[in-house]
C-alpha cells in the first residue's frame, strides 16, 4: 500500500507540473529540424506598425523558405512546365513584370496586371490579389497554379510530379518532416518564401531613419502627397508613419464610369464593391510599370495626370476622390513633377538585387 502511494505521488508530481516542462528543462533537448527562423523586421516597421502576420500553422523555417523559393522559380508547377511564378513575378521588377497583363501557358492573356510581391506579411486584412479573392497568402499561392489563364495545372498532377521528382520529396521532408507531398504543403512553402520578401531600404526609408537627405523637389513632392488640398494621396497610400505605403484596402479610384471588371464586387457579390480594387503599395514604382489593376498606364506621369484630371465618376467611386466633377485634384505641372520625384524615393534597389531573392 505504502509503495503504491509513493509511486502514485511521484507520477502525480510529474504530471501535475508537466505544462512547465520546457521552462524547467525537463524535456530532453532534441535538435530541431526544420530550423525555425524569424523574419528580420526592419527598424522602421518595428517602430511604426504592427507585427507581421505569420500563421501559427506555418511558421517560417530555413528549409521551408528554401523549398518555397525553389518552387517559386520552378516551371514544374505549370501545365506544360514552361512558366513559373517568377515568369510573372520577376525579382528585377519588384516581383511583377513589365506587361499590362500576363500570358499564361497557352499564350492567353489574363485581364489583370501581375501584382508586385513584397511586405506581404504586413497585409493585416489578409485579402490578397487585386480583388481580394484570396483570404490568405497560402491560398493565394495555389490560385495561379490552377488558373486557366495562368499555369493551368491540375494540382493533383503537380503533386504527383513533385512526388516523383528526384529532389522534392527530400526537400519536403526537410521542411515539413514528411515526404508525402500535398497541395497544402506546396502552398505553405511558397507562402513562407513570399513572407521573406521584405522591402524597407529605399531612399525615403533612409531619410526616415536620418541616414539620407531628400532634395527640395522631393520634399515638395512629399508635401503634395500629404496635403489634403493638393494630392491627398495619404488617405489610401499611407504616410511616413506607415511605411507600407498602402492601406491594403479596396477603393474605386475613379478609373472608369462603367466596369468591365467588377473587382471586389465580383468576389463579394455586393454591388457597392463594384469597381473596387486593392490599393497597391507605392514602393518600388520605378520597377513596377505598367500601373493599375489592368496595367493601363505605361508611365508614372500618366498615373499622376489621371488623378489630377482624369477621374471618371461612377456610383461606387470612393468619397476620398476629390473634385471628381473637375476630373481630379488639379495639380500644377511643377507639383506633378515634384510628386513624381518624391514617389521615386520609395524605390528600393537593394530589394530587387537581393541575392536571397534571385533564382
Amino acid at each position, binding site marked *: 500500500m*505504502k509503495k503504491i502511494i509513493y509511486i502514485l*505521488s511521484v507520477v502525480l508530481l510529474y504530471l501535475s507540473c508537466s505544462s512547465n516542462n520546457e521552462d524547467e528543462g525537463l524535456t530532453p533537448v532534441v535538435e530541431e529540424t526544420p530550423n525555425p527562423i524569424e523574419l528580420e523586421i526592419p527598424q522602421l516597421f518595428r517602430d511604426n506598425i504592427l507585427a507581421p502576420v505569420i500563421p501559427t500553422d506555418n511558421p517560417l523555417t530555413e528549409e521551408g523558405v528554401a523549398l518555397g523559393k525553389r518552387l517559386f522559380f520552378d516551371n514544374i508547377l505549370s501545365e506544360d512546365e514552361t512558366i513559373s511564378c517568377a515568369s510573372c513575378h520577376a525579382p528585377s521588377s519588384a516581383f511583377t513584370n513589365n506587361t499590362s497583363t500576363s500570358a499564361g501557358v497557352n499564350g492567353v492573356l489574363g485581364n489583370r496586371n501581375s501584382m508586385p510581391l513584397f511586405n506581404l506579411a504586413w497585409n493585416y486584412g489578409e485579402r490578397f490579389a487585386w480583388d481580394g479573392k484570396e483570404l490568405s497568402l497560402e491560398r493565394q499561392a495555389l490560385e495561379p497554379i490552377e488558373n486557366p489563364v495562368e499555369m493551368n495545372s491540375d494540382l493533383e498532377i503537380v503533386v504527383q510530379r513533385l512526388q516523383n521528382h528526384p529532389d522534392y520529396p527530400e526537400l519536403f521532408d526537410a521542411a515539413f518532416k514528411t515526404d508525402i507531398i500535398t497541395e497544402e504543403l506546396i502552398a505553405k512553402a511558397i507562402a513562407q518564401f513570399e513572407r521573406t520578401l521584405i522591402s524597407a531600404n529605399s531612399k525615403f526609408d533612409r531619410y526616415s531613419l536620418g541616414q539620407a537627405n531628400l532634395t527640395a523637389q522631393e520634399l515638395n513632392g512629399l508635401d503634395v502627397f*500629404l*496635403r489634403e488640398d493638393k494630392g491627398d494621396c*495619404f488617405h*489610401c497610400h499611407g*504616410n511616413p508613419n*506607415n511605411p507600407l505605403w498602402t492601406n491594403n484596402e479596396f477603393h474605386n479610384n475613379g478609373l472608369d464610369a462603367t466596369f468591365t471588371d467588377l473587382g471586389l464586387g465580383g468576389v463579394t457579390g455586393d454591388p457597392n464593391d463594384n469597381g473596387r480594387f486593392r490599393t497597391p503599395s507605392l514602393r518600388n514604382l520605378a520597377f513596377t510599370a505598367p500601373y493599375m489593376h489592368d496595367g493601363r498606364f505605361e508611365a508614372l506621369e500618366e498615373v499622376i495626370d489621371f488623378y489630377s484630371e482624369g477621374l471618371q465618376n461612377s456610383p461606387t467611386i470612393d468619397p*476620398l476622390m476629390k473634385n471628381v466633377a473637375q476630373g481630379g485634384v488639379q495639380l500644377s505641372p511643377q507639383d506633378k513633377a515634384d510628386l513624381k520625384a518624391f514617389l521615386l524615393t520609395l524605390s528600393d534597389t537593394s530589394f530587387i538585387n537581393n541575392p536571397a531573392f534571385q533564382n
Partner: protein
Amino acid sequence: MKTKIFTQIILLSLIILSCSDDDTSSNLSQATTTLSFSHNWNGTTVTNADFNTIQFTNQNGEILSIERLRYVISDVTFTTTSNEVLDLDNYNLIDVTNGTNLNLDLGTQIPPGNYSNVSFTFGFDNDDNSQNYLDLNSASFNVPEMLGGGYHYMQMDGKYIDNNNQEANYNYHAIRAVDNPGPNPTFPQDTFFTVNLGPVSISGDTILNIEMNIAEWFRNPNTWDLNQLNTVLMPNSSAQIMMFENGQNVFSLGSVSE
C-alpha cells in the same frame, strides 16, 4: 500506521492541488465592464449595413450617405461618489465600416460600486495625440506632420446630393484644429472633447451602451451646409472648430445592461 497513511493522503492532495490552474478563483467576485458603441440617425439605428445608400437627411436638408466611419475614443474614466477618478489611460479605434472594436472590454478594471460619472475623450488630448500608436499607424489613421501630426479623431466619408442635384463626395474628418500648415503649424484651440455619460452603478458584469447620433454632427449649434463644407476640411480650422462644437451632444449613454 493510520497516521502515516493519513499524512500520505494529505500529501497527495496537496500535490494534486498545488499545480492546478488557480487564476480564476481570485476574480470571481469582480465584475467585467464593457463599453458598447452603437450609432443612430436621430434615433434610427445605423450599422454598416446601412452604408453606401444616400438616405439620411441632415438639418440643412441635404440627403447623404455614409461610406466610411471610424473614430477614436480615449482616456475612459470612472469617477466614484467620493470623487476618486479611475483613469484607464486607454484608447480604442471604433471602425463602424468594418464592424470592429464596437465593444471596448474593460475587463475587471472597474470595481463594483456606484460612480458619479463615466467619461471618455473624443479623439486624443494633445499629449496622447503626440504619441506613436502602431495600430493606428497600421490603420493609416495619421494626420500629416504639416497639419500638426498625430491622428484623426474621426473619419466620416460619404456622398450627398449637391445643389446641382448631383452626387458629390464629402470627407468629414475631425482632427486637432490647425492653422499655418507647414513646418511650424499653430493651433487655435483644442478640438478634442470630454464626453460625460453621467452616473452608473456597477454591481455585476455590465455593458454600458453608448450611442452616437450621427445627425448631431450636422446640426447643433452649427447647421452644416455640405455644399459649402464638404472636402479638404482638415486644414480648415474654422470647420474643425464647428465639428468640435457640434460634437458636444453627439454621444449619450443609452441602456445599461447586466
